[in-house]
């Protein structure tokens, strides 16, 4: 089974993306907690792409594809904004964030802790984030 959705880069579309992922996952009969975790991981990546990579420019788009391969679900999220530099990524220190009153910067940590594999690839124009989660 494979499915995809294409939305423009506004934060309001995050709800649409979550509903799309929820609808897809519903067929897989997952627990509430696992389903919420997977929806969250996809939401976090899409929020980052919309806000940071594409600066909430409604003329830009991202595409989300989802498929189940054997015992794992795979998400492919593509855009043409600024590529995420995984090599520069540092895990956040939450206590430090609290001390500093920092609002952002914990989304990718959630994604890394929820998903089994997280990859970012780019060909210079098109960037794709690949998320894998074992579900059986």
């Amino acid at each position, binding site marked *: 089974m494979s499915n995809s959705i294409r939305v423009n880069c506004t*934060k*309001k579309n*995050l*709800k649409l993306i*979550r509903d799309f992922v929820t609808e897809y996952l519903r067929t897989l009969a997952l627990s*509430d*907690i696992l*389903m*919420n*975790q997977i*929806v*969250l991981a996809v*939401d*976090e990546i899409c*929020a980052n792409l*919309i*806000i940071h990579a594409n600066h909430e420019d409604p003329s830009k788009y991202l595409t989300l594809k989802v498929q189940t391969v054997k015992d794992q679900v795979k998400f492919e999220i593509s855009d043409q904004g600024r590529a995420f530099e995984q090599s520069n990524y540092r895990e956040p220190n*939450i*206590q430090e*964030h*609290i*001390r*500093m*009153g*920092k*609002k*952002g*910067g*914990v*989304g990718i*940590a*959630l994604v890394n*802790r*929820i998903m089994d594999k997280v990859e970012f690839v780019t060909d210079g124009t098109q960037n794709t984030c690949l998320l894998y989660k074992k579900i059986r």
Partner: protein
Amino acid sequence: MPMKITQEIRDNTVILTLDGELDASSSVILDEELSDPEIMKYTMVLVNCQNLNYISSAGLGVFISHLQRFEDAQIRLIFYNMQDKVRNVFEILGLDLLMTIVSDYEEARSIANE
């Protein structure tokens, strides 16, 4: 509107009831609510999460960003009636150990009165 926040005042306590989903789009209104200088007049902020169906890092970030300010002002921030799937998101980052999450209103009140 994906998030509705209702505010209720009882003595020295502000009770915020969250209804809906807290994501990168809707968390702005929670931030406005917690940034309101009026809130600093109280000693407790209780957050009823019964109808909070979803939270992303943006929603968590709003609570993270206000926690120290509340602690400095000796205001207790207590979450209650949290759904398991939402609590799980706090747990993934270890926030359940840094914030006070209790099962229901009675427990929240008894902790607040300590």
